[in-house]
């Protein structure tokens, strides 16, 4: 798994398609979502984090299962 900071560095320095490069980067979806929330909307980091977030959506939390009394 790659760190989000490393992925940002890779994506902000490439001349290839962002989607194409981002597909090859294994990142943690929660880490991406948290970095996106902190990024300035007019920054390059925000641009690449949006691409990463679209490819790595945060999985919805599963509803807690009812305890059984068996």
């Amino acid at each position, binding site marked *: 798994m790659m760190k989000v900071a490393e992925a940002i560095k890779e*994506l902000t320095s490439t001349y290839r398609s962002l989607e194409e490069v981002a597909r090859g980067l294994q990142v943690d979806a929660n880490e991406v979502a948290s970095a996106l929330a902190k990024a300035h909307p*007019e*920054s*390059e980091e925000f641009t690449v984090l949006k691409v990463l977030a679209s490819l790595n959506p945060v999985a919805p939390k599963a509803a807690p299962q009812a305890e059984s009394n068996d």
Partner: protein
Amino acid sequence: MALPNKVLPGFSAALYCQPTSSPTPLTTSALSTVASVAAIAVSGNLLPVEAIPAFGQDDAVASFAIAGSRQSDKIPVQAAPTSMTITAAWNPADSQLLLMREDAKSGVIDRTFVISATDGTNIVYYAFNGRVGEFKIDSAPGAEAKCIFSVHPRGNQYGWSNNA
């Protein structure tokens, strides 16, 4: 502020190019970031063109036909940014036009170009990296001298952004 939600009038677009003879073109992410693009779209970088040609992506399909089948397939592929042939009034001392002339002479200089489209309030930017592939001067006596040059964008290296 929201993006303009109306049909934009003609002649509201302008073309800018990165200055200097050996520019470092913007990366793909910077081409989609308004802060990086707006820094190029300043009056000092304006190209004095007569009109902005159509810009955006070409229609890209690969057509396949298999012997014996009744219909061929049109398979969409990633669309390349469209090439633009641009006409400008020829001012031999205009620094941006001289850059275009030198780029055409070289043929391998990558430069960032920016087109801004505006309704007077908000601006939509289309930025791309390209090389100049043609530079001609038309000095027909019936009108002012014109220069005509073509910009061929590099694949994948374009982006849209706006200041809304």
